[in-house]
């Protein structure tokens, strides 16, 4: 029972931390909408082209926006020494990684999920496509959070270029993009593609605690 309380109060801390700085989440969403705007200005207001390209734009921008907040994953807690205190509180590093991934999912990806309908209106994407888009992003965003957790834990001690983390996330999210766009455009093989995406989620979710946990342990050891 004690363990469950620890998890609940871990999320209380995350909630306080993220919702206090409300503007962090809002800036992510604003980044997402501004980049849509830029695409519209670059492609031109012609309805047909936009609806053809719209789904690709939405997904790419969702990916880019979720790599924005990689620094918030472990970097701040690591510098404060809070990561060590959480560990000394009885949570193993792998478990901290899982909790942090879900907290990144709730506080960064869910706002994007909620802003997809508006983006679809802007980009003149049909309604049935909207359902597929949110379904594929629902699973895809968790994969992106796991990849974000792995890449940001790798770059904790990387003083020189932190951008490497976003490149890692982007490279490993190629399958996510391919299958998600496949889901949206090919309605007839919907349930088999969703299962494939779910398979990828399972693999990445199984690797995440080991890879991130080991990197966190390393960084705290050699800090």
């Amino acid at each position, binding site marked *: 029972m004690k363990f469950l309380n620890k998890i609940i109060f871990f999320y209380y801390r995350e909630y306080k931390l993220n919702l206090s700085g409300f503007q962090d989440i809002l800036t992510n969403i604003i980044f997402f909408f501004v980049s849509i705007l830029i695409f519209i200005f670059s492609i031109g207001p012609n309805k047909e082209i936009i609806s053809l390209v719209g789904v690709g734009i939405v997904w790419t921008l969702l990916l880019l926006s979720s790599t924005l907040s990689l620094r918030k994953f472990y970097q701040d807690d690591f510098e404060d020494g809070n990561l060590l205190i959480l560990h*000394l509180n009885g949570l193993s590093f792998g478990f901290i990684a899982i909790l942090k991934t879900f907290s990144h999912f709730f506080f960064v990806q869910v706002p994007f999920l909620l802003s997809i309908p508006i983006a679809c209106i802007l980009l003149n994407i049909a309604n049935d496509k909207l359902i597929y888009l949110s379904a594929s992003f629902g699973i895809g965003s968790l994969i992106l959070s796991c990849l974000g957790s792995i890449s940001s834990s790798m770059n904790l001690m990387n003083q020189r270029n932190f951008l490497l983390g976003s490149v890692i996330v982007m490279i490993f999210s190629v399958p996510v993009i391919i299958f998600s766009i496949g889901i949206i455009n090919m309605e007839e093989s919907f349930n088999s593609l969703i299962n494939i995406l779910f398979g990828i989620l399972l693999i990445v979710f199984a690797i995440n605690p080991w890879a991130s946990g080991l990197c966190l342990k390393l960084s705290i050891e050699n800090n």
Partner: protein
Amino acid sequence: MIIVKDLSVERLNKKIFENINLSVVSGNITILKGRNGSGKTTLIKAILNIIEPSVGSIYWKGKLLKKNLYDFYNNVTYIADRTSSLKKLTLKDNINIWKKLFLSNINNSQIEIALKTLKLDKYLNQKVGRLSLGETKKLEFLRLIIENKNLWILDEPLSNLDDDSIELMKQTFEDHCGKEGSIIFSSHQNPGIYVTDEINL
């Protein structure tokens, strides 16, 4: 409580310290003395089982530390040299988070008394970022009281504290040892605190 048997740690083939022997029984204070960079923090990290010692072993309540790590972590509070309070949040939020996260059974009155003695009660609704470094460090000690565990491990607790805060520190150390707790802390100055045993690095 803790017995350290001829512990030595190597980093990148450089010997940081070798065959350290220490036995901490409830009620005594150990000080780790040494100039900067002499490996005090590394020894503390070794005790907290964060670093693998190359030679030697550590026992907790008779058993090997690695074996019953969970019980060890339930009885230790670690205060690092950095302040772990969240700068963006107010003092009140930080205390709430600490109280909840460490499932501590401290009632609010005790926290009020501690805040008064640390002269931090008037900053309760201010953001921690606005406090001075010394005050944030004093806030860090509040965590000792909130967690209410019997082994305290502190890294450089007395750095950038003014005189009456150091006096206050001595007082809390003695109360804690009186209640069968034990303390290990490192310091590069000479604090003049009553110390049961000493390790020079």
